[in-house]
């Protein structure tokens, strides 16, 4: 279980239902290596999103055994884990007055703010691990609000093919495609080890979907592992495709 970047064993998800519990999947196993892009497909309602939120430890109805770079998930606080294993929801939720604020939001949180992280971390062993990782693949070298000036955000967005997005724009003025790319940029700038992208190209036109695919393949080339839930036809970016159907992963 230690050779892969991320391993999951015995993943089980059961939703509460009127007639007891409804099992979505049981005993699933999954591995992914650095730099891989895995497409997760399957009929709607098969539990793809539940599986990804379970990987990010965001799903209260799921449990299982997971490890990242050979370390068990229990060694991480939920915040440390989610910093490394980042779930990107299908619906972009952009919090802030303007695009620059939106993208800076993760850096205002305690987990990326060393002074506060010392007090909130429960697992002492994982402390140093959780904070070691400050270099962003997009070039920003510091954590914290001050370390992400507008110019850095600008160059990052430009590098991602988002020249059309003005930093001073209010989030609700963005088009659907722009909002999806800002949401993606926000998570990518936090530089997770594993990105769980839940249908981020759904509802986008082909042009925007292609942009998103290019951004993700760039991230993978720099060592990020990516799992994508997709309903579009294969775009040639994925290294492999797995199907979740009737509780089985193939």
């Amino acid at each position, binding site marked *: 279980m230690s050779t892969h970047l991320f391993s999951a064993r015995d993943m089980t998800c059961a939703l509460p239902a009127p007639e007891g519990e409804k099992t979505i999947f049981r005993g699933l196993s999954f591995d992914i290596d650095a730099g891989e892009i895995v497409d997760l497909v399957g009929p709607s309602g098969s539990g793809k999103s539940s599986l990804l939120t379970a990987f*990010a*430890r*965001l*799903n*209260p109805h799921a449990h299982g055994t997971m490890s990242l770079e050979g370390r068990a998930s229990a060694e991480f606080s*939920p*915040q*440390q884990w*989610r*910093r490394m294993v*980042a*779930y*990107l*929801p299908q*619906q972009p*939720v952009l*919090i802030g007055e303007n695009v620059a604020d939106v993208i800076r*939001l*993760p850096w205002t*949180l*305690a*987990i*990326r703010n060393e002074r506060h992280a010392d007090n*909130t971390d429960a697992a002492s062993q994982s402390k140093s691990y959780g904070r070691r990782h400050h270099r962003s693949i997009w070039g920003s070298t510091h954590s914290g609000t001050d370390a992400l000036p507008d110019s850095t955000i600008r160059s990052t967005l430009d590098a991602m093919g988002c020249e059309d997005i003005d930093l001073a724009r209010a989030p609700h003025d963005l088009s659907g495609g722009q909002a999806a790319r800002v949401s993606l940029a*926000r*998570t990518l700038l*936090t530089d997770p080890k594993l990105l769980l992208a839940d249908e981020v190209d759904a509802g986008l036109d082909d042009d925007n979907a292609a942009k998103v695919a290019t951004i993700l393949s760039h991230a993978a080339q720099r060592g990020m592992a990516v799992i994508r839930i997709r309903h579009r036809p294969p775009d040639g970016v994925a290294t492999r495709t797995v199907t979740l159907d009737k509780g089985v992963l193939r």
Partner: protein
Amino acid sequence: MTSTILTTTGMYPVAVQASGTSYPIDIWGLLIALTMVIVASGLSWLMHLGIGKTLLWSACRALVQLCAMGFIMGYVIKSGNPWLVLILITGMLVAAVQITLSRAKGVPKGLAGPVLLSLVITMLLMISMVTELVIRPHPWYAPQLVVPLTGMLLGNTVSALAVGLSRFYESMKERRNEVDTLLALGATRWEAARPSIISSIRLGLLPTTASLASSGIVTIPGMMAGQVIAGGDPFNAAKYQFVILASIAALTLLADTLIMVMVYRTCFTADDQYRDKPVVEHRKRNR
């Protein structure tokens, strides 16, 4: 015991001593007030406002409750027994918890403990700061001070807590996607809940700050009005009123903050995940 009775019966609130005349209300006064409510209810019935029955019922309830409270308070003040004061305040606290929980909409079951705790803490602060530090009565538990002050504080905190709690759970439901996004970005449950906490405390405190700002210009608050009507010195009454308003405002903020700190976790699991249905868990020792 005799000495206590002597000292308490000899003591009226400082403000009331000042100048003299008070005008008691007889049974006809009560009936006239009740008649006004009946007429208003009749009007509401004619205009199909649908509020007449509630108005009438509430007025009757208020009359009975107030008279009962007046009777009980008279008895407690006369007896000068600190244990009776304690029992009366305990009864008021229990009623306050019950009213808070029945007024707060959409809150999980099992919040009685946190509500009681925040009411007790603020009430103890009220008694120790205002009664013992500012007014300094003899004996220290002087019922005619402690009981009305507690009542005024509870009246304010109860509505602030009810509004604050309702707003918090409503806001957490509305912000579901935002909370999930924040958690996914590595926020702690406190960071994810903070916007809801802030907005609910603000909303809960709105009437208090408004009454603080408008008092003396638009309104003559109840306590000051009461002392003046009872023949007290208006300036003294104003000082009393300010002490009460200021301390109630501060303590209402404290009560709202305390309750939020105690209940925001109910929206999250132990693993900092958003819960669809908030649950009050019995606190485990190891967390």
